[in-house]
């Protein structure tokens, strides 16, 4: 080991006297405050500022604070909106330790520190502030109020959030386009727990979720590896979690606080992880639903998301529920609309099995108006919930659309699903296909047909044209567009159809004109075209997927007259109650456009029906 025996210095009478040489030197000390203002360093951790226009009130600063110095306080005048909570941090400088963890973890970057470090007051009330863009008002400070330069700010090294998602494994495009197997593989336990660890538990998502699911709570359950608790959280608000864990439009993720600077938490996949990993047999034990029977019965027309959700919640309240479904299998759009590669039958079956286990009767092949009259249903039940959805396709009505090889997306999707589960014949598979539309249904049919083409001919030839001029403008999810591109679908954004070209009674293709504007100044649908610019896309089949419409033909005329409609939708109160007090409605015929809205409507209607029937007693 290296060491040195130090030689001790000898004493010297004159040596200490040399210190006198400093007599004439300038002192290094400075007088504060007032005399000399000593500016703090660039990274100084001084008093906070908080940019209110950026702050979303997520409260992560308060959670990380090691001294409990930060409290979130609701600010009157701020309103709750998507992605924002109406609260702002209040900092108690009697507790603050100036560690800047709040700055480093701030989801938006609104909270920062200044170089102001002087604040002198003998009033204890002067040590609590709600920082604003101007910071705090430091008494006898270095700077004028609001003029203090920035000190400690977050950079990529000091960031305490995890901005990157745990990657979800997917089947490769070349492989998945050959069959209808499910694309997303789902998280493993380790992956799910890691992804759950990214959540800061702010709950901003809950407000935006149409069903107001307890998202932070079930994510925390995953983080704690307590899936049973997670399942209970899911079923509090959403009995179709299996379906929503796969095909929800996940608006929650678009407002996720982490998404402000990084990739939002994969809420949808985490939900799916819980459902995928709790066996169905365990459900009744975990959820422990034993309602007291109320002795009243409810009829529900339609077994789509809204119908099933309403049935679940009504059954848990103790009502006797019967669902009337026209199709041979329950599930509505989930059974017949969404392609199998996104939502396999088994997933849906699991959700429906639980609802049936609660005693809900689902009568299939029971088309109201044909197999049973509406009046009969109305007579049988104490209240009726309509959830019949948008089952009819819309047509562009351009010349040639009446040709039998010009099809509607919904019936085609239904035919494909029926074929895949062995319920029906093989749908016709064109060599060249043109799809008209830019929404999710257009993606579904394009990608389904691409698969069929691949299986049949070994190559994909699908051309999808939409009015919207960019991918961003298209109403379809970006994921869907990207995946479709990967699978070989060709897109033509910004083209409106002129006519279906038919020669010798056979479809030859579609002529399009350039769309230069879809919506007008008032955001109304009002497309304008440049008639000069045209293209022609070859096709031997054309599928229209430009939207759906409701079918109210099953409703008796006198009822229809009593109901109020707005743009094809039934008007209801917040509990789904229509102008007829025993008649409730929800789902696409009230709100649209996605499954989770249907679930939310079903939940609201269940509460509404319960209120209505309880008040009648």
């Amino acid at each position, binding site marked *: 080991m290296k060491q040195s025996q130090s030689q001790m210095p000898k004493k010297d009478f004159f040596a200490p006297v040399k210190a006198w040489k400093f007599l004439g030197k300038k002192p290094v000390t400075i007088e504060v405050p007032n005399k000399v203002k000593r500016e703090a360093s660039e990274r100084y951790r001084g008093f906070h500022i908080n940019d*209110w226009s950026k702050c979303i009130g997520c409260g992560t600063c308060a959670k990380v604070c090691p001294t409990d110095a930060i409290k979130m306080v609701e600010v009157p005048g701020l309103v709750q909106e998507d992605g924002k909570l109406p609260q*702002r941090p209040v900092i108690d400088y*009697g507790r603050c330790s100036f560690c800047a963890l709040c700055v480093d973890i701030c989801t938006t970057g609104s909270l920062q520190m200044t170089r102001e470090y002087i604040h002198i007051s003998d009033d*204890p*009330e002067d040590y609590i502030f*709600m920082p*604003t863009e*101007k910071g705090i*008002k430091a008494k006898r400070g270095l700077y004028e109020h609001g003029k203090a330069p920035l000190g400690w700010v977050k950079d990529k090294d000091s960031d305490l959030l995890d901005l990157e998602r745990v990657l979800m494994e997917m089947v490769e495009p070349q492989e998945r386009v050959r069959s209808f197997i499910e694309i997303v593989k789902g998280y493993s336990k380790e992956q799910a727990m890691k992804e759950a660890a990214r959540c800061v538990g702010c709950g901003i998502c809950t407000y935006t979720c149409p069903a107001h699911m307890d998202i932070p709570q079930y994510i925390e359950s995953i983080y704690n590896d307590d899936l049973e608790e997670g399942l209970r959280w899911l079923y509090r608000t959403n009995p179709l979690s299996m379906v929503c864990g796969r095909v929800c439009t996940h608006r929650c993720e678009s407002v996720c606080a982490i998404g402000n600077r990084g990739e939002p938490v994969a809420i949808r996949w985490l939900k799916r992880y819980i459902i995928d990993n709790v066996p169905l047999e365990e459900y009744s034990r975990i959820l422990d639903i034993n309602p007291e029977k109320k002795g009243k019965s409810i009829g529900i027309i339609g077994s789509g998301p809204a119908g099933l959700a309403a049935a679940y919640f009504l059954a848990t309240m103790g009502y006797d529920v019967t669902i009337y479904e026209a199709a041979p299998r329950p599930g509505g759009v989930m059974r017949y609309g969404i392609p199998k590669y996104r939502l396999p039958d088994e997933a849906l079956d699991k959700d429906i099995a639980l609802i049936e286990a609660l005693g809900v009767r689902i009568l299939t092949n029971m088309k109201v108006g044909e197999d049973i009259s509406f009046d009969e249903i109305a007579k049988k039940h104490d209240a009726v919930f309509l959830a019949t959805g948008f089952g009819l396709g819309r047509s562009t009505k351009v010349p040639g659309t009446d040709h039998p090889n010009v099809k509607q997306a919904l019936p085609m999707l239904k035919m494909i699903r029926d074929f895949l589960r062995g319920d029906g014949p093989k749908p016709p598979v064109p060599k060249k296909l043109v799809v008209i539309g830019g929404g999710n249904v257009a993606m579904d049919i394009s990608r389904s047909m691409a698969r069929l083409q691949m299986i049949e001919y070994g190559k994909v030839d699908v051309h999808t044209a939409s009015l919207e001029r960019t991918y961003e403008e298209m109403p379809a999810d970006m994921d869907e567009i990207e995946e479709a591109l990967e699978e070989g679908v060709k897109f033509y954004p910004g083209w409106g159809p002129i006519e279906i070209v038919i020669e010798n009674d056979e479809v030859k293709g579609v002529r399009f004109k350039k769309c230069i504007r879809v919506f007008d100044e008032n955001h109304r649908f009002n497309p304008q075209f440049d008639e000069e610019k045209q293209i022609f896309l070859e096709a031997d089949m054309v599928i229209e997927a430009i939207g759906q419409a409701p079918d109210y033909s099953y409703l008796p005329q006198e009822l229809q007259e009593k109901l109020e409609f707005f743009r094809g939708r039934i008007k209801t109160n917040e509990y789904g109650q229509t102008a007829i007090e025993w008649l409730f409605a929800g789902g696409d015929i009230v709100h649209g456009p996605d499954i989770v809205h249907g679930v939310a409507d079903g939940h609201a209607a269940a509460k509404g029906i319960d209120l209505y029937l309880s008040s009648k007693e």
Partner: protein
Amino acid sequence: MTNSMNEALKAIEIFNPMVEEIDERQVKVSVGNDKLVSVLETLKSKGYSHLSLITCVDWIDDGQLELVYILFSWQDGGKFIVTTRIDRNNPKFVTVKEIWPVARFYERELHEFFGVEFEGNDDMKPLFLELWDEMPPLRKDFDPREYSKSKFPDRKYEKDVIKEAKIFRGEIDG
């Protein structure tokens, strides 16, 4: 592991230790209550003569306290974390102050913070806390927040911080 650590481990093999390597110069050795002092003495004679720390971990779910003795060798930087578990409800052990005099104070501290009695060490006056009237505070079931709530008042602020912030932002006149 260093050579001398291997040798030391061989020497204590007869005491049936549970050995867990933490890094190349750190090993955790868990032994039974009756073996602990012998293990410590053996290790000391093998060069692990510096007592870095005596401490305790409360495994409340197992109903046990784990006594931890950290030994260090100035020869090669090897560290032994020697532990033994005792009953949490009747926490008694023997003193090691004869081996390391400073242990007297560590043991006094553990008595104060965990309630462990050390036979042979009768100086158990509280070392750090004055007028303590609760359970030993480093036990897991002691809640310091509840304690301080019961002992000290919370500060209440009167100031309307929201109004003040709005004045700062120029939303209202102040």
